[in-house]
């Protein structure tokens, strides 16, 4: 059975990717993921903000007490570097790319326009097979117009594309006025792949302490519907590859994403929850399902349930059908 896949122009042994997560913070972790069978590893994201904060903190801590006392001019060896966060990431990327025989993809979350291109170039030089732009932008300012937000995404893609020759994927938010048009514009701007979607990590509220609680929760299969819908809608309409992410727990979610039209499926939560070896469970399940259904290659599976290009009537019909079914079953007749 053939699980080989093409994503961002890269040849992969299968369509399962390790999404950015703490599992890829060490070379050992990347080795484990590759050993468990994934087709490629997307490293944890390099957060520019975090690197800057760390650098500022180090720059403040290292010279503490300098030239304060007669007997000690400094307290750390001169070799203690104060700005290492990016180097650390790049060294990991370099070592990981050497250590495994599957593509290693770098991931960036920048805050300044120039940083995206600069870090992308550095990742390419360190051996990244591709770069994933983890664009996490919450426009809380009511004066920011939708077009500005979109242009910001396009500007980042243009800058990065002009700086690197390796493929570039864009991990984007589902919240645009016209998500399909945004996908189309990113495609035209040169994005080699779209990763659907970034999860916004909304804070919760603790009623007892009266405090906002930042919370990172692992995704669940209930969250699969949104990316699944958009992958089904975008399949066949873009040049760029499509990667699905969010909500993968077992082989079922992998299969659903492929049927909707995803080129590859990324998983972080399930691998964190069950360990890197869970990749084998996902792939074995896909394999078994394909055998049971009589599929020999993924091309036969991919996009079987995508919305056809003239599917606008169907989109509306699906919606009406869904509501009618709901009325007649569990939820009463109040719709």
């Amino acid at each position: 059975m053939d699980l080989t896949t093409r994503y961002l122009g890269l040849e992969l042994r299968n369509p399962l990717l390790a999404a950015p997560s703490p599992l890829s913070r060490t070379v050992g972790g990347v080795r484990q993921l590759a050993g468990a069978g994934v087709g490629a590893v997307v490293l944890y994201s390099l957060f520019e903000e975090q690197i800057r904060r760390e650098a500022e903190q180090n720059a403040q801590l290292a010279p503490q007490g300098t030239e304060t006392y007669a007997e000690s001019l400094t307290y750390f060896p001169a070799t203690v570097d104060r700005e290492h966060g990016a180097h650390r990431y790049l060294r990991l990327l370099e070592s990981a790319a050497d250590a495994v025989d599957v593509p290693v993809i770098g991931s960036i979350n920048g805050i300044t326009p120039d940083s995206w291109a600069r870090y992308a170039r550095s990742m390419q030089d360190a051996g990244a097979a591709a770069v994933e732009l983890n664009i996490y932008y919450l426009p809380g300012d009511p004066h920011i117009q939708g077009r500005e937000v979109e242009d910001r995404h396009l500007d980042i893609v243009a800058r990065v594309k002009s700086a690197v020759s390796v493929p570039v994927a864009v991990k984007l938010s589902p919240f645009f006025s016209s998500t399909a048009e945004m996908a189309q514009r990113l495609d035209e701007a040169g994005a080699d792949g779209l990763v659907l979607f970034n999860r916004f990590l909304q804070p919760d509220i603790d009623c007892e302490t009266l405090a906002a609680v930042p919370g990172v929760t692992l995704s669940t299969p209930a969250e699969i519907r949104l990316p699944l819908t958009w992958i089904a809608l975008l399949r066949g309409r873009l040049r760029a590859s499509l990667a699905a992410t969010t909500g993968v727990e077992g082989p079922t979610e992998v299969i659903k994403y492929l049927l909707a039209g995803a080129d590859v499926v990324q998983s972080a939560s399930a691998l964190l929850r069950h360990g890197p070896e869970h990749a084998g469970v996902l792939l074995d399940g896909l394999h078994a399902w394909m055998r049971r259904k009589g599929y020999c290659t993924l091309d036969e599976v991919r996009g079987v349930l995508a919305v056809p290009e003239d599917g606008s009537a169907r989109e509306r019909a699906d919606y009406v059908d869904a509501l009618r079914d709901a009325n007649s079953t569990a939820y009463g007749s109040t719709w």
Partner: protein
Amino acid sequence: MRGAQFLQPLFEFPGACAGCGETPYLKLLSQLFGDRLMIANATGCSSIYGGNLPTTPWTTNTDGRWPAWSNSLFEDNAEFGLGMRLAADTHTQQARRLLTGNRDALGAELVDDILGAPQLRESELSAQRQRLAALGARLDRLDRAVADELRSVLDHLVRRSVWIVGGDGWAYDIGAGGLDHILANGRNVNVLVLDTEVYSNTGGQMSKSTPLDAVAKFAAGGKTMPRKDLALQAIAYGNVYVAQVAMGADPQQTLQAFREAEAYDGPSIVIAYSHCIAHGIEMRHGLDQQYRAVASGHWPLMRYDPMLRATGKTPFLLDSHRPRIPLIDYRHRELRFRSLANSDPDEAERLLALAQESIDQRWKTYEDMASRGPHHFPSDARKDR
């Protein structure tokens, strides 16, 4: 710190770095033992902020008395402190001899009370001071030369508390031979090691207390030898009181260890974790970091009390819980560890794994010792106690 905070400190306004991890231990020492203290201070941070002449943070109480303090050379501080002990003991013997010889003239009952007075509790020490005040008023009954001689040694009839204080550069390295000598000597001296795990005063050079994986001067690529276990080394003698404390993790255990060490009639050593600017931390979070040092197993809290062995109990007491946070959760907050992870992540990863292994092994050793019966530990062979 229950029971100590209402006691007057005789150590105030030291010129140490803001947030220094050492000074709280010295303040506590002065609160607990006050004007009975005789301190031999090794050269290092504590000798600089402790005696930045012409000023000194060691101060007087309302009676005008204060701790005796002096600074020795780096390499002979333990012997210097032992000398203080011998001098104090000689003065005490001299005073007792003079009292005994002039028992009738001074009043037999008062003299007997003074010579036989217990002096462990604060109330007992206070009563002894009152007796000595009464005795002072009777000195004119004696020949003038005898009275002058007795007056010069009278204060030594209140039990002296000799403390030998220094950092890890002194205790683990430069003064290690002398420290070993005085611990093996059996005399009643107390040692306080203000352990910053690095030479602080001279600017962050590694000592034998610097942990595996830490970056320090002379170990810029990360230290590749584990830190010496000074506590176990001292325990090996069997008749040395030993404690490892961290005020930020368990202040009551620190208080108890100080009291037990001082009360023990023999050599005592208290090894006190002291955060430092050379760790690369925000000093206002120093006590939180002490807590993490203990919670990760980097700095287990323990006491070894030979008195328990003498009463048929296990002398090794493990005072901290089993490690409950990974070592990295403690270490990644300090630049001395983090910088290696930045400059050489593979080496940092290797050394961290070895450090974790070493800490796990030490914990098992301590746990095993804490569960052994008293007969597994040596008896105190001294007769003259």
